[in-house]
């Protein structure tokens, strides 16, 4: 399939889940979808289009929480990014780790750094932060405050 056929096919197939379709440049496409349909669309792109799952980035905008899932289609040199917007007070979304194992670690990292809950993840425990780090303190959030009173914050000499 050519690039135009592929994008038209996605638009037609998931027309009631797609909220915004931004065709930015020949190699970058950003699609905003409803959070409830992430597993359906991610499975289609991974299994039927045979794209490679690149990574997922969690972003804390001041008003809402966003996750972008990036998939690469090498034969067409195209990078599709699926954007979901979540409520900032209680961010939850279904996990795509049961579908393919590549998403396992990145969801663990997003849950401990941004506080997003992934429903259905097989093993949602800490990946990077130390065991002594307090619960409920999420470093990458915009309202994060330094909690350690004994840390040295200048040159140290």
């Amino acid at each position, binding site marked *: 399939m050519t690039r135009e056929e592929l994008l038209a096919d996605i638009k037609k197939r998931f027309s009631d889940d797609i909220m915004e379709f931004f065709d930015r440049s020949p190699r970058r496409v950003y699609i905003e979808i409803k959070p409830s349909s992430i597993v359906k669309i991610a499975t289609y792109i991974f299994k039927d289009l045979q794209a490679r799952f690149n990574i997922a980035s969690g*972003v804390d905008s001041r008003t809402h929480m966003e996750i972008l899932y990036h998939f690469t289609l090498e034969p067409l040199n195209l990078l599709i990014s699926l954007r979901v917007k979540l409520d900032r007070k209680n961010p939850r979304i279904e996990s795509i780790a049961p579908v393919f194992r590549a998403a396992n670690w990145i969801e663990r990292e997003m849950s401990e750094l941004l506080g997003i809950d992934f429903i259905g993840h097989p093993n949602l425990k800490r990946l990077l932060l130390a065991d002594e780090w307090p619960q409920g303190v999420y470093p990458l959030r915009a309202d994060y405050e330094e909690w350690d009173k004994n840390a040295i914050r200048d040159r140290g000499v």
Partner: protein
Amino acid sequence: MAKSVVPIGPFHPLQEEPEFFTLTVDGETVVDIDVNIGYNHRGIEKLSERKSFDQSTFVIERICGICSTSHPFAYTRAVEDIIQVKPPERAEYIRTIIAEGERIHSHLLWLGLAGHFLGYNTVYMWVWKLREEILDVMEILSGNRNSYAMFKPGGVRRDIKSEDIPGVIKKIDSIVPTLNRLKKAVLDDPVLHARLKGIGILTYEDAIDYSALGPTARASGVAKDVRKDDPYGAYDKVDWDMIVTKTGDVFEKVVVRVLETYESIKIMKHCLLNLPEGDIDLNIKDIPPGEGIGTAEAPRGETFHYVRSDGTNRPARHKVRAPTFMNLPTCKATVVGETVSDATIILASIDPCYCCTERTAVRDTRGKRLYAAKELIRLSQQKTAQIKRKMGLK
């Protein structure tokens, strides 16, 4: 037979970086493996939000010592993707030269370490002696043996003087005969065949399911390489081959890396001899609000950077993904079923770079570590005891 837990790490003489593998062993066969990382977490994504776009390049370069060019390369491509510009041609050639020089030295480093893990210290010493020539070349071209400080959004920061080039070409040519001898010595050796062939096999289906990258995936038949799929720099102007093999065991991974070194030497020489004239920098002034994605091929796979800008001179969000992050979970598929003595070489065959993998930190933004070496040893001993207690073993 009772099962026992063999911890490898976090401070282990066979690894150069701290990570904690827990192997559950039944007799001599590994039954399960668990990976705990987080010892190198440094807070780089948060730190990058407090520096301007130009200053952030230096923080990004120090994510890793060995693949230190691929991270600024991907970052500058991401910032250029926000404004949709292309740097001048001379800058692209210089970027390619530095990136390939780094690939040569990284693969030679790994080859030496693989020899060391097998107990073959002669290979270790000889390969690292060969590596000194490449480090001298990088010192002539950029001023330093690692962390070259050459990248900038919009171009490169320093130029290559044309009177340096003949000396550099001579040094690169002197590597090739020794590399030929080394290649034959490694690939013909019966001991290495017996130790490396047929172990740690990563099948094609597993490589796709885990989204493995770089030489780890190319040894299993997955023909993906950012330099061919999405050509950047000067890679589409040079004639070179992508190395792909079929089986996916550790021996094939060695073969892929050794053959890639030859291709890198070819690319580097071609770019040095055909360097075009012109500007080296676009002088970008303002970055408007938007988001951009940049990728580059590190020696270990594809690096991915996502940058979001809100119109000020600092990034609003900077996401970094190193290739080892996707390659490391594959150890679950490759180590289970093998013997304990082969476990270290299989774990080392993905060429792990843990500094790249975890970037947040138990460290504040400018100063000392909050956990010193003594603390870490105590913590790791506590953790081993804790795991053993949890599993009901002694």
